[in-house]
């Protein structure tokens, strides 16, 4: 067992400084971009763009700063699980909150049982 202490070389992946700097610059650029875009009228797309940039920034941090690009499948599965579960929570809560006011019955349903689905 003792030989483990004597291992030579690096443990884990050493990321070149250049990569860190590139990621850093990209993140800074993303911050500037997202702030700048907020001042342009894109209608509904403002939100989409802002979130898309945030996701890209997150991926950069996760993959490079957090070394996930060089990590095992298990780590990736765990991260994906985290976001997947967050997705479950958001989706199914919205499934209630945002459909509560759908008073208009979908067409399919009114075909199943026409006698019920009239609007008052």
């Amino acid at each position, binding site marked *: 067992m003792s030989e483990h202490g004597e291992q030579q070389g690096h443990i884990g992946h050493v990321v070149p400084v250049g990569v860190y700097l590139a990621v850093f610059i990209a993140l800074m650029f993303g911050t500037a971009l997202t702030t700048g875009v907020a001042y342009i009228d894109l209608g509904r797309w403002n939100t989409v763009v802002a979130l898309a940039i945030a996701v890209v920034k997150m991926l950069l941090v996760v993959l490079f700063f957090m070394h996930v690009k060089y990590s095992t499948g*298990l780590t990736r599965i765990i991260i994906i699980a985290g976001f997947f*579960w967050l997705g479950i*929570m958001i989706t*199914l809560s919205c*499934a*209630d*909150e945002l459909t*509560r006011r*759908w008073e208009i019955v979908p067409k399919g349903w009114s075909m199943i049982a026409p006698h019920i689905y009239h609007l008052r």
Partner: protein
Amino acid sequence: MSTATVDLREAPIESSVNYLNARYGIKSWLLTLDHKRIGLLYLGTITFMFFVGGTAAVLMRLHLIEPQGALFEPETYNKMFSTHGIIMVFFFLVPSIPATLGNFLIPLMIGARDVAFPKLNLMSWYIFVTGCCFAMYGVISGGVDTGWTFYPPYSSAYSQTHVIAFALGIFIAGFSSILTGLNFVVTIHKMRCPGMTWFRLPLFIWSMYATSLIFVLGTPVIAITLALLAAERLLHVGIFDPAVGGDPLLFQHLFWFYSHPAVYIMILPGMGVISELITAFSRKKIFGYTFVAFSSLAIAVISFIVWGHHMFVTGQSIYAGLVFSVLSFVVAIPSAIKVFNWMATLYRGSISYEAPMLYALGFIGLFTIGGLTGLFLASLATDVHLNGTYFVVAHFHYIMVGGAVMAYLGGIHFWWPKITGRLYPDYWARIAAAIVFIGFNLTFFPQFMLGYLGMPRRYAMYPSEFQVLNVMSSAGASILGIGYLIPLVYLIWSMRYGPVASANPWKAKGLEWTTASPPPTENFAEIPVVNEDAYNYPVAEPRHYPDAPGVARV
């Protein structure tokens, strides 16, 4: 291997030093990093909490003997069932099997010296105790009257009781769950001994793994939800308050996002225990190992997408109701798979009826009834009638008391010789098991009838036509109480006076039975190497499995 005449009291393999007597003194317990001792610390704590919750239950049942209420003001009764629910769920049943048996057994079963993070493990016990202290402070200083579900706006703006103390207690205890779950996930991934592949793991480990996933993924949500509730109550800001545009149903979504999976936190470990008991007492390999293993994972995953079935009549959108209803049916399937595989395991086994097995068989029957009545509630049309009535109360007690608590007791009895190195009087244990079974059914079966008749739950008084059934239920509860007190007595007795147990009194399979009873601090003399499947009991037509070095066949 075929030492037919071994007496259960045969001399232990190694007697001298074990985890219990390795060090003495209160400090050696309070500062221990040994997973086995931490398991025992938990055992003591949750037993205490169980009797606190149980006392509340007994008082409630006494109160309900009379339609007008025999003992308390309604306000006191409300505090009673709230305290009962909160303590039983968050401070007893959620940590019950994972934190005691799980802590004790996981490293033993996978052939490790300890869990991955022993300090974290000890810390999680301290956190748990802190949570208990908050809850007990809440109880002593006047209690809480919101029900265990804390629905706002009642809990945030109207209740005059100690909501914050309890919310904080649960918040804190939640972190203990998170740390325990985290520890287990890492331990099961990284600490298995050589040869212990995923598909050689005992099914108890699979179920603990599934449980830990729920701990890790669900508990943070209840923590933040209760934090928001406490903030709303303290600062009067109104996040769930409709007066300022909030939605009280959002709280319910977040609450059940955790609390529905939490009910599987309570049953999955029980299912794991049952898999161990059934195989050990019928001396057979489990039927359909992979199906039982994966059904645990399936339950853990699906449990996260059914929570809305608690909200069918709360004004949730019809569309969401339909989705949650169908998913609730889906989650029943893996449970069915488990039940049938256990039965198939019994087929052509060599079945004996020591107390743990009685609990296991009781579990299967009562869980089936509890689970199938869950289908009444998952069906939208019938839930409209049954929601909020004693039918729901009966449903979950059948699963949580008839199922989870039975499994817990079965597990404690099964591993008691390993934990303490002593045997308990099996005769009394069987009697107690029978009393529990009878008392349980008498308590909770009438509640199904009450529910269908329309008696709402959380009622301090009720119309007199419901009295007969209520009296039956109360009578049952006192029998049940006696049934729970008997094990308390003889188990404590056995710690001192019980006959000394051998390393493997049941002749069961599994690494934990290959080491001494009680195990040494480091669990195994040498880390075992596994090269056979779980539950590899001898069979009539001989098979050729080489004896594993390190896996002594007793």
